[in-house]
């Protein structure tokens, strides 16, 4: 049991002061995802001093860490135990924290098979906008005592509370991993992807870019070998494969990193057909995630995503925008507004990061 941390008092006092003065705070970890979401006008509240792994017991499949703990530290400790975060959180640079990872709620290439950040959150301790501490969830896999507040915090972008500590489910690293590449055009790749997930194949991740379909098979040796035989294609050597998936996960590869039009993130049903937009595209998650570099007007991109049963986020661009996320329909919008009030009645936590109105 760790000793009470001095930075906790600092954080709760900062919230109390902010509340009294009605001066919003901008919660910040490593700042690796500063670009994501709307701009926040507020005093920076740095969570990084609240750092350290509270407990890690590999056989319990759980790690608990203070929110400011560098994600890299968590990943390296897990690797030492032969385990990892199955959802492959994107890093977007050095210095990201585990609290920022949960608050952003973003998952990497393995998401379609392994689940998302939220699926792996087991518990959190937070400070709400009233300056109150609360612990929700816990360190066990199954927990239905009360509302699952801890999972609600995943992807909440700091608008409900300041994360202080998180517990995450971890899993063993796959024993074997092989990446196959085959040539396909966009619709050919989508058709094939839509047949793959209903076969008992150990498909850990998939991506299509520039005429190449990349399939990562992972699991036990016999399962991967059987999957390779069933799918066919050129096998990437292990170094190349690792570099390809890391470039995708961290968005360092040229499709993402090169200067150019805005980067849009379209989250769609995996069976959605090819989309005719101007610009370049990269597909992940078996067709459920489509990245576009496009100058198409926001309304046009959003309309196309909505019609197909999904939504579009202006993920990254030259200039920040106030409304990067798809607006909410009623009555969801009202519930969001009321939930914000339930956690942060004075709107002092990250106002504007998720939606302009809160």
């Amino acid at each position, binding site marked *: *049991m760790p000793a*009470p*941390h001095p930075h906790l008092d600092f954080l709760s006092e900062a919230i109390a002061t902010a509340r009294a003065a009605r001066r919003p705070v901008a919660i910040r970890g490593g700042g690796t995802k500063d670009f994501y979401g709307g701009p926040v006008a507020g005093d920076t509240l740095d969570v990084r001093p609240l750092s350290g792994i*509270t*407990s890690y*017991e*590999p*056989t*319990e*499949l*759980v790690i*608990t860490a203070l929110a400011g703990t560098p994600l890299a530290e968590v990943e390296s400790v897990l690797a030492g135990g*032969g385990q990892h975060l199955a959802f492959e959180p994107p890093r977007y640079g050095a210095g990201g924290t585990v609290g920022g990872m949960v608050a952003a709620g973003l998952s990497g290439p393995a998401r*379609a098979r392994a*689940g*998302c950040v939220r*699926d792996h959150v087991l518990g959190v301790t937070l400070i709400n906008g009233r300056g*109150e501490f*609360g*612990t929700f969830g*816990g*360190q*066990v*896999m*199954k*927990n*239905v*005592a*009360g*509302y*699952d507040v801890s*999972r*609600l915090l*995943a*992807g909440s972008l700091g*608008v409900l509370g300041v994360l202080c*500590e998180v517990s995450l489910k971890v899993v*063993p*690293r796959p*024993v074997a991993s092989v990446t196959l590449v085959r040539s396909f055009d966009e619709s050919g790749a989508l058709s094939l992807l839509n047949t793959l*997930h*209903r076969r*008992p194949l150990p498909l850990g991740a998939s991506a299509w870019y520039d005429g190449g379909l990349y399939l990562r098979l992972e*699991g*036990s040796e*016999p*399962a991967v070998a059987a999957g390779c035989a069933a799918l066919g294609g050129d096998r990437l050597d292990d170094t190349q494969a690792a570099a390809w998936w890391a470039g995708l996960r961290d968005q360092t590869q040229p499709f993402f990193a090169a200067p150019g039009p805005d980067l849009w993130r379209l*989250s769609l049903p995996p*069976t959605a057909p090819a989309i005719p937009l101007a610009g370049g595209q990269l597909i992940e998650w078996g067709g*459920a995630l489509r990245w576009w570099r496009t100058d198409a007007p926001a309304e046009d991109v959003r309309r196309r995503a909505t019609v197909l*049963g*999904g*939504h579009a986020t202006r993920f990254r661009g030259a200039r920040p925008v106030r409304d990067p996320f798809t*607006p909410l329909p009623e009555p*969801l919008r009202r*519930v969001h507004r*009321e*939930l914000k009030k*339930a*956690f942060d009645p004075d709107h002092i936590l990250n106002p504007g990061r998720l939606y302009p109105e809160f």
Partner: protein
Amino acid sequence: MPAPLVDASAPTRSAGSEARRRELLGALARVLSGEAILADSEATAPFECDALSAYRVRPLVVVLPRTDEEVAGVLAACRALGTPVVARGAGTGLSGGALPHAEGVTLSLARLNRILAVDPVACTATVQAGVRNLAISDAAAPHGLYYAPDPSSQLACSIGGNVAENSGGVHCLKYGLTLHNVLGVRGYTIDGERIEFGGQALDTPGLDLLSIVVGSEGMLAVVTEVTVRLLPRPEVARCILASFATVEAAGRAVAEVIAAGIIPAGLELMDRPMVGAAERFVHAGYDLDAAAILLCESDGTATEVDAEIARITKLLTDCGATRIEASRDEAERLRFWSGRKNAFAASGQLSPDYMCMDSTIPRRRLAEMLRAIEGMQARYGLTCVNVFHAGDGNLHPLILFNANDADELRRCEAFGADILETSVRLGGTISGEHGVGIEKLNSMCVQFSPAEREQMFRIKRAFDPAELLNPGKVIPTLHRCAEYGKMHVHRGVSAFPDLPRF
């Protein structure tokens, strides 16, 4: 059957309450046909409890809508009149979540029982809330697909109830809980407005409300339609049955399997009294000399499963298994499971009644927990048998008692509360998969601080400002906790034991 703890006899109504009842019936008659409204006490009697039959309340009215529009109409009518609404699925819940409200409407979703779509390409099924869990897998079977979460009541329980409770099952270590297998739900707010959480894509804009609606026990919205993710059915499953001379050795063996990087499809532990009861009941071939037995299942392709079974067999043998066998065919696998699947029924043979607990603890505290339960048997003068979802730490102690003996019932309740409190102290939780409902309200006072409980009330009011959806469940009031008189205990591994809580 335990004696009712709550008086179910028809209350004598004041003139005012009779007038309100007539007004409600009038409003319901405008949205439902007469046969969908049950108002006399004979007709409402079957709805007075769920599977937690020790608690019974006769509802004012039961409604059985057939369509979404009717559900919306019922909710709007109740909202206008300030009438509480308790949604109900198949009534198989074990925590009294569907216990009626004496002044309220019980909204049965049993007639919303159509499978709307099975999409073998997207691997999803969209079904109405009243569809049975197993019926989804049956409908998906022709495509080689199935719905993974398998609560033991899966033959009868409805998917809407599974969503309300975030139900698990014996395979959830590998395949996740209901939340992990649901893409989206549709339903209605208390105002009767249509609302959707999640969707057909893997995420939605804004807050992840699906994660809080799943498991909210009907207190935030009424779900009428659920889209679930389907998985390809594994080619083969095989099961290992292993005996151990001590519970500690069995617990260590579980840790070794996980440490070796194996996530079994199922991993169950039963203690000696439970093994004896199950064996007498179904003759599964269990080892009566064992202090504990483990069931460990592997699924996947044939080669993969054979390799994993070999590895697990070696690990368990190295951990001191005194007897071990692996199923050679499907019949044998089902025989191994038959004792575990009939554990509750077998306990019913040991005693007139049993109370099933459902706490979760960090797995490494298992032996400690079982020793504590042994001590409690002596303290409360009652016997307890144990089954354990060993992979994920979810413990189901079954306390044997006679409900017709008021003192035994009282001791049984105290025994149960003690188990829950001990679980919280060991760093666990009061409910792993059965929900809080009415049964564990008092224990919520022990697990959560007043500020945490107030935060949950605020969440409820964000969805349901008038607090009409399943009121009085899940979150205990300050007053109730004060009466219960037990303080919030800090969880075993809480990071901030000395922080002031409000």
